[in-house]
């Protein structure tokens, strides 16, 4: 317990020292402070588990999880391929393309758009994950059904954001395109789609998490004998909790990386937007 107290005091003091206004602008400080905080949490987890002799069936220590992680890399890689690469990513791409396409097409009819926007907003707030058992029933146990769930889940948030984005141009900009004698397609490609990109990326970033959630949940309803959702649900039953935590680490890591990649692409595509200026 004394070590624990010591860790928090030194970590807290270190962070206080780092957060001084003197280093306000240094980017590395913005990276180090959360890392120190995270390390503090990890060390306390480890120490508390050791101190109170918590059974590894209930809560394994971080070191145990790391050990399992290293020992069972091949299982983790197979699960990652099945769930993230096959299920989540393919569903995400199909869903995003279909949603943006629908937004561009429906955008031409104000009437349809006025009807679809409130409905899309409403459906985006619904617990669509519940559709997983139905789609698993329709498309079978393999990754196709997971991709289908992901398509349905990411469709509406991206659609709603794309709609908003396509309306983000103002009349001065559209008038300018008009004076250039630009046609519908030219206006769309050169003005409205680029202007919509910040909104579209907003939707895509929301959809990254949804894609992983959809892919994992639909594996609870039937999957081949691999996949992160399968491993988690069977692992909880079989009391191989350390493997479950290793899967959670993979899920957390791939979720963050997926999100991070989206942010990077967004920076490249919407470099002109005020929020991206350094």
């Amino acid at each position: 317990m004394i070590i624990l107290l010591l860790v928090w005091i030194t970590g807290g003091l270190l962070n206080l020292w780092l957060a001084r206004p003197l280093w306000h602008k240094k980017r590395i400080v913005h990276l180090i402070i959360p890392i120190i905080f995270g390390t503090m949490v990890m060390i306390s987890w480890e120490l508390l588990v050791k101190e109170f002799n918590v059974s590894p069936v209930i809560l394994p220590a971080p070191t145990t999880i790391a050990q399992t992680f290293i020992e069972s890399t091949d299982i983790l890689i197979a699960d990652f391929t099945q769930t993230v690469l096959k299920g989540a990513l393919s569903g995400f791409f199909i869903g995003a393309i279909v949603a943006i396409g629908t937004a561009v097409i429906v955008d031409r009819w104000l009437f349809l758009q006025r009807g679809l926007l409130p409905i899309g907003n409403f459906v985006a707030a619904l617990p669509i994950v519940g559709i997983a058992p139905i789609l698993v029933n329709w498309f079978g146990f393999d990754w196709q059904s997971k991709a289908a769930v992901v398509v349905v889940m990411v469709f509406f948030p991206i659609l709603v954001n794309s709609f908003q984005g396509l309306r983000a141009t103002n009349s001065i900009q559209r008038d300018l395109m008009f004076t250039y004698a630009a046609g519908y397609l030219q206006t769309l490609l050169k003005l409205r789609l680029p202007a919509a990109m910040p909104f579209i990326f907003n939707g895509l970033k929301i959809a990254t998490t949804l894609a992983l959630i959809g892919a994992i949940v639909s594996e609870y309803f039937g999957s081949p004998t691999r996949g992160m959702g399968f491993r988690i649900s069977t692992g909880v039953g079989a009391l191989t909790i350390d493997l479950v935590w290793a899967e959670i680490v993979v899920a957390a890591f791939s979720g963050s990386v997926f999100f991070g990649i989206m942010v990077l692409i967004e920076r490249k595509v919407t470099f002109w937007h005020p929020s991206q200026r350094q």
Partner: protein
Amino acid sequence: MRNLLPIFTVVGLIVAVWYAAVAPMNIRSALDQLERSDHAVVPAGALERREVSVWYLLVNNPNQIAVTYDLERSRLPTPTQIGYELWKSTGEMLLRGKAMSKRSLLYHGWVTLQSTLWGFFLGTTVGVMGAIFIVYSRIVELSLMPWAIISQTIPIVALAPMIIVLSSQIGIESRGLPKAMISAYLCFFPVLVGLTKGLRSPALSQMDLLKTYNASSVQVFFKLRLPASVPFLFTSLKVGIAAALVGTIVGELPTGAISGLGARILIGDQFGNPLAIWAALFAAAIIAGILVTFLDLLQRFTLHQMGMRV
């Protein structure tokens, strides 16, 4: 109100597509069933039918199409069937005085709603506290904010079974608390981000004005920052309560829960009863609609009372 006609048109289109899709989706199982009860179907034999497309089956069995709209365990039930199932498990139960029976969706909806509201309450509290800390302390912002963002990129469903196993082994028997924790996890983030934005929304000139009044920081908080953040707060509360409902249902799905809408979905899946799944899904949609509408009305009322334009 001028949106009503477009909305009804789009809903009508969706329903029309749905009805059109029922026949091709169900024709195979309908023909299997008919053949078993000695009706003539083209082509005969389940194996032969597997070789041809659903369109071929539809064209060659025009008299049997009506059956596809009236199957008990269809792959895609019609909206009418779902509506009837919903009525059977809610209104009819209520009329017979069995509103709280285990087969009533009112009971399961109530269980889900309770967890959702607890999770919403918990998540909102954490989000509000976090936002206040972040606005007033740089060190908290720098250490917490990145983790709050990372926490949302972690698929919570991976953690859901763990949270439930953990809490049952610690000795918490009721399923309400772990479910509420999962929905709080999904719900706190929009509140945290929205309120942080809202508390920071007063302009520098307004802050300066309060400084010239010699206002203490508590006064600045209650007289300027908090009122200015209310519109932001309500917007994120609406996102938050929808997220809380998703969290509760996700918490009920993988964990062998026996009550709640998520459990109904799970049981409907295990017993091969698609109508039960669809009815539970629609019940969840209705609850989401009611909750968001309620917060929306509350927002309009509050902002109107505060003299802001909605």
